[in-house]
């Protein structure tokens, strides 16, 4: 008897299974809306954020479209105290800070409600770092160009060092470190708890939220600002994805370019932005009278360990991420009313993802699965976070976000993708999938509170 009790208490110490984790606030900076209210309206209306690129001169590029945050309606400084700190922030750090400020506002978390050392940050961020290309081009590349040998491509390192030092403000280097976005967020929110940056590309946002959930479950934090941010709409970012053949080239019709599951899909539309969710331990939320928007119920994560771009054709590891997530939540496939897909709109992903969900839901029937990337674009490290935000808001307002631009079904990925129009529906529980370049598979589950 004593032996059994000992084992039981050891396992409950590892993770407190009885206490739920709530989502108490959401903030978003997206190409279809700044703030959860505008974002929700845009999702309901099936708006596309894709346009011709304005961030730089894209003449001659194979892909000349992107989903950009509208700078005329986004003033980063208004979310930052003191305002002058904005000049130390990269574009994606500013997105994250703004999203966190909006999320905190909705959560009504007041200074003094929670010990700052119990407030953590878990942020998906860009692998290239939130580096502004102007910085790199103006300082780094110019220094390289003037230090190159006359007859060869070899770099004269001492000459490069002289040029670089002469042109570079030392503080500007700090904008480029990938962990600085989470640092700025922590400074703004006085979050002194565990601070982690996750760089698993397209699944980083989902994984950051999952790791935030775990930090609370294992007792390291009571509140976590969790989400993702990215801002890669610059010549190198666009060229990089374009040369890999992943971007849509529907340049003459940007709003219809992102068309997941459609037979005429030809790749994704790169986007930028951030989403931050306030995750909170149930007892803490109750004690301060917070309103829970939803329960963050489960998380599953695997890796294909197969190829660096191609996915496993049988999607075995992706299936496992889904089933692990369901098991983590103590749920089963039948409980799920909606799935927010990774749904990039590349030829390969949409087929593999359909295979994965069909396998995971074999026997219980596949619920509707839509891709909000059809509207928002692919926000890379922020994608998983923005897409969970879309799922939560759909649950709160009783609608399924649509997959827009769906005209011709593809026999290789047949499913109910909520074509073109948002659908009124009650969501009791939902999943959100993310599958990253490199094979990372992550799945989150939310449940009505």
């Amino acid at each position, binding site marked *: 008897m004593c032996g059994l009790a000992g084992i039981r208490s050891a396992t409950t110490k590892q993770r407190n299974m009885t206490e739920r984790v709530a989502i108490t606030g959401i903030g978003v900076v997206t190409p279809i809306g700044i703030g959860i209210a505008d974002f929700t309206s845009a999702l309901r209306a099936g708006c596309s954020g894709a346009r011709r690129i304005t961030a730089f001169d894209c003449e001659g590029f194979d892909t000349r479209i992107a989903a950009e945050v509208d700078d005329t309606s986004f003033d980063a400084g208004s979310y930052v105290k003191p305002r002058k700190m904005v000049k130390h922030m990269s574009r994606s750090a500013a997105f994250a800070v703004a999203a966190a400020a909006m999320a905190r506002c909705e959560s009504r978390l007041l200074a003094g409600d929670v010990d700052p050392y119990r407030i953590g940050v878990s942020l998906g961020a860009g692998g290239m770092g939130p580096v502004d290309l102007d910085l790199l081009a103006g300082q780094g590349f110019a220094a390289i160009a003037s230090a190159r040998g006359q007859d060869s491509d070899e770099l004269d390192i001492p000459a490069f060092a002289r040029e670089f030092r002469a042109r570079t403000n030392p503080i500007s280097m700090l904008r480029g470190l990938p962990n600085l976005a989470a640092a700025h967020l922590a400074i703004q929110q006085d979050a002194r708890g565990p601070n982690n940056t996750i760089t698993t590309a397209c699944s980083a946002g989902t994984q950051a939220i999952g790791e935030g959930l775990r930090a609370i479950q294992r007792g390291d934090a009571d509140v976590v600002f969790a989400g993702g941010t990215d801002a890669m709409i610059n010549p190198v970012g666009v060229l990089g994805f374009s*040369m*890999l053949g992943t971007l849509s080239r529907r340049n003459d019709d940007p709003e219809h370019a992102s068309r997941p599951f459609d037979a005429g899909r030809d790749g994704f539309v790169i986007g930028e932005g951030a989403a931050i969710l306030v995750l909170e331990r149930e007892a803490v939320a109750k004690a301060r009278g917070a309103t829970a928007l939803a329960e963050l119920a489960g998380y599953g994560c695997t890796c294909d360990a197969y*190829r*660096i*771009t*191609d996915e496993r054709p049988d999607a075995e590891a992706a299936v496992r991420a889904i089933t692990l997530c369901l098991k983590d939540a103590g749920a089963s496939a039948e409980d799920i009313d909606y799935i927010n897909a990774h749904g990039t709109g590349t030829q390969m992903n949409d087929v593999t993802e359909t295979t994965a969900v069909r396998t995971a839901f074999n026997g219980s029937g596949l619920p509707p699965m839509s891709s909000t990337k059809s509207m928002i674009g692919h926000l890379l490290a922020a994608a998983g976070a923005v897409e969970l935000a879309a799922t939560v808001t759909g649950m709160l307002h009783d609608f399924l976000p649509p997959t827009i631009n769906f005209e011709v079904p593809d026999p290789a990925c047949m499913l109910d993708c909520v074509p073109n129009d948002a659908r009124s529906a009650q969501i009791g529980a939902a999943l959100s999938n993310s599958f990253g370049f490199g094979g990372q598979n992550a799945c989150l589950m939310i449940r009505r509170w």
Partner: protein
Amino acid sequence: MVPPADVQPETSLVGLGAESIDFLDLIFRIEEVVGRKVPVSRWETFINTRLPGADLSRAITLAIVLEFADQERSRT
């Protein structure tokens, strides 16, 4: 690395472990040889016309790639 002796004209590249990025790499190297940009769409069109309905995991051989490279080289 695959020993050159193992690669015959009729060897399937996917059979040797080639994946999608390896074909992008091949096109890049063809560009370096012919001295100009080779759009991926031209490779795709070539494959679709040259090997209609074929099992591409078997049919894309060294010979097929060399045929494409020759075609690109002789374009003016």
